[in-house]
């Protein structure tokens, strides 16, 4: 039997309702969202709106109209960064960013002349808010922070950074790729101006879904222009939401699937999900510590992390370990840099990479046992 431990890349499996509603929509409706002149199209549109509403509720956002759908959190981050930053703007960011933020910032630095300051972090990925404050300059336009590292799992002090940003009147963009659906996010209480999320990780929806929640009046220049289904004689992208930042045929099937996943999350409760993942994390950490030659990274404390554990085995190449686990034990984990070289620089693994397990809500302790047995077999065969 397969053991899936790559939930930090994408969650698997999905709640059964997700493929069921997608199937039902494709087979029995199939109409595009946007201004429909027939009932099925209006129904599809209504389902898209319901998903906006559910997301607004989940993140305590007041206005579903400013929940903008994108194809991924990467697109959402690009939309916010490229759409807002201008030449000379200064941006403060973490030492743990995924390339979805980092490459976008570096490209804007090269092509648009923005300036970047990176806030230092400890080797376990913890950031001190005083260091964020120290990085702010009079030109700081935005603070962009990951909510939790996809390599170390370390949760960042988003609430405190949000309060700082609000006090200094600086925009605060949060990358919630690893946290949405498992760590509570409160846009109002945490003073988040822009929340970028993906639908296919802990929100348990399908790939191809993501979004940006806009909780500020700042003008965001659209990444793309095109049909919105309304106001068609007007020659530019409308300035009202969500159409301002959405163009082209929407991923209705994916968005409806995400809606079903959000219903599942609400029924299960974020506390229940977090509690189960914490227990699995503690169980996994304890078991991994017993593996000979293990090098564990990150805080190794489930209360400080999401369900991500990066590790190496002394004297072994991460890719070889992952390959062995896959081929011999049917255990799926990730190896390499996980698209986040900055975090690997912190822990000194930028040249080597690490193995990474990503624990999800549908994992059980037996999955961890299978992993540990696999690692022990690998060591037996390769030492």
């Amino acid at each position, binding site marked *: 039997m397969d053991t899936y431990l790559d939930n930090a890349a994408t969650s698997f499996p999905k709640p059964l309702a997700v493929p069921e509603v997608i199937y039902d929509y494709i087979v029995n409706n199939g109409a595009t*969202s*946007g*201004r*429909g*002149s027939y*009932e099925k199209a*209006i129904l599809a*549109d*209504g389902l898209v*709106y*319901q998903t*906006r*509403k559910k997301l607004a509720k989940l993140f305590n956002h007041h206005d*579903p*109209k400013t929940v903008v759908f994108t194809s991924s959190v990467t697109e959402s981050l690009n939309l916010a960064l490229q759409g807002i930053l201008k030449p000379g703007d200064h941006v403060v960011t973490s030492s743990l960013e995924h390339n979805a933020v980092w490459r976008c910032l570096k490209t804007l630095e090269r092509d648009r002349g923005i300036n970047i300051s990176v806030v230092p972090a400890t080797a376990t990925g913890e950031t001190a808010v005083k260091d964020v404050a120290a990085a702010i300059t009079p030109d700081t336009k935005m603070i962009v922070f990951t909510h939790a590292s996809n390599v170390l799992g370390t949760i960042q002090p988003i609430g405190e950074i949000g309060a700082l940003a609000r006090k200094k009147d600086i925009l605060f963009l949060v990358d919630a790729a690893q946290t949405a659906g498992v760590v509570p996010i409160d846009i109002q209480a945490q003073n988040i101006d822009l929340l970028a999320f993906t639908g296919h990780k802990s929100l348990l929806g399908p790939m191809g879904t993501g979004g940006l929640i806009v909780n500020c009046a700042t003008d965001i220049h659209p990444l793309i222009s095109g049909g*919105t*289904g*309304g*106001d*068609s*004689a*007007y020659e530019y992208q*409308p300035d*009202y*939401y*969500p*159409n301002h930042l959405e163009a082209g045929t929407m991923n209705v099937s994916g968005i409806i699937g995400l809606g079903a996943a959000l219903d599942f999350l609400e029924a299960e409760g974020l506390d229940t999900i977090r509690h189960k993942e914490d227990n699995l994390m503690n169980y996994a950490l304890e078991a991994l510590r017993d593996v000979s030659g293990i090098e564990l990274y990150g805080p190794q404390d489930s209360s400080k992390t999401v369900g991500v554990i990066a590790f190496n085995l002394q004297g072994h190449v991460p890719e070889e370990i992952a390959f062995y686990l896959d081929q011999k034990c049917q255990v799926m984990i990730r190896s390499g840099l996980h698209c986040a070289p900055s975090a690997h620089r912190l822990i000194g693994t930028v040249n080597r990479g690490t193995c990474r397990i990503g624990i999800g809500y549908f994992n059980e302790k037996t999955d961890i046992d299978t992993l540990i047995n696999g690692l022990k077999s690998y060591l037996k065969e390769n030492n």
Partner: protein
Amino acid sequence: MYLSTISLIYIKPCTTGGGRIKFRAKLSNPVPEVMPYLNTVIKTGLYIPSAHTFTYKIGSHIINIHDHNLTCTQLTNEAECYEMIDQLYQLINETWENRASIVPNEETRERPSAIQLYKLLPRKIGCKICGQGSCMGFASKLILGTCRLNQCTLMKEAEYAPNYLSLEAHLQLLGYETD
């Protein structure tokens, strides 16, 4: 819960500019029993008991409820239509749930008069293109719902746009279609 659903059934097509969208929705059941209570809650509403019609304004939006049908005007986009439906759904159900503490009101508040409409008509030259003998006659027919605003061709001229919007709002408040 009095209403189980309000289903959107029509949105004006993409030829309509943002801010001019209108939708029609179907109520899961008619709400005549709720209307006297709505008439108390919404102090600026126009309730016509004999016609089972309740009309009122939220900002620039005119909402008309009649039998199974609901219309709403002056919306920006689809998302705003759904938002409005949620608001109306909540209003109707909450009003019904709280009816024990609301004194129902069967009164019909004052309706716009023909004179009010006449004052908003353009030029008033008595061109008769609308088919009526005079502009005052046209205004009277507008009140009765037997003439449509677009029968006055001068109304469409740009300089009368503000008057058109005012007239349209008055007529929509009476529950009439305006285009």
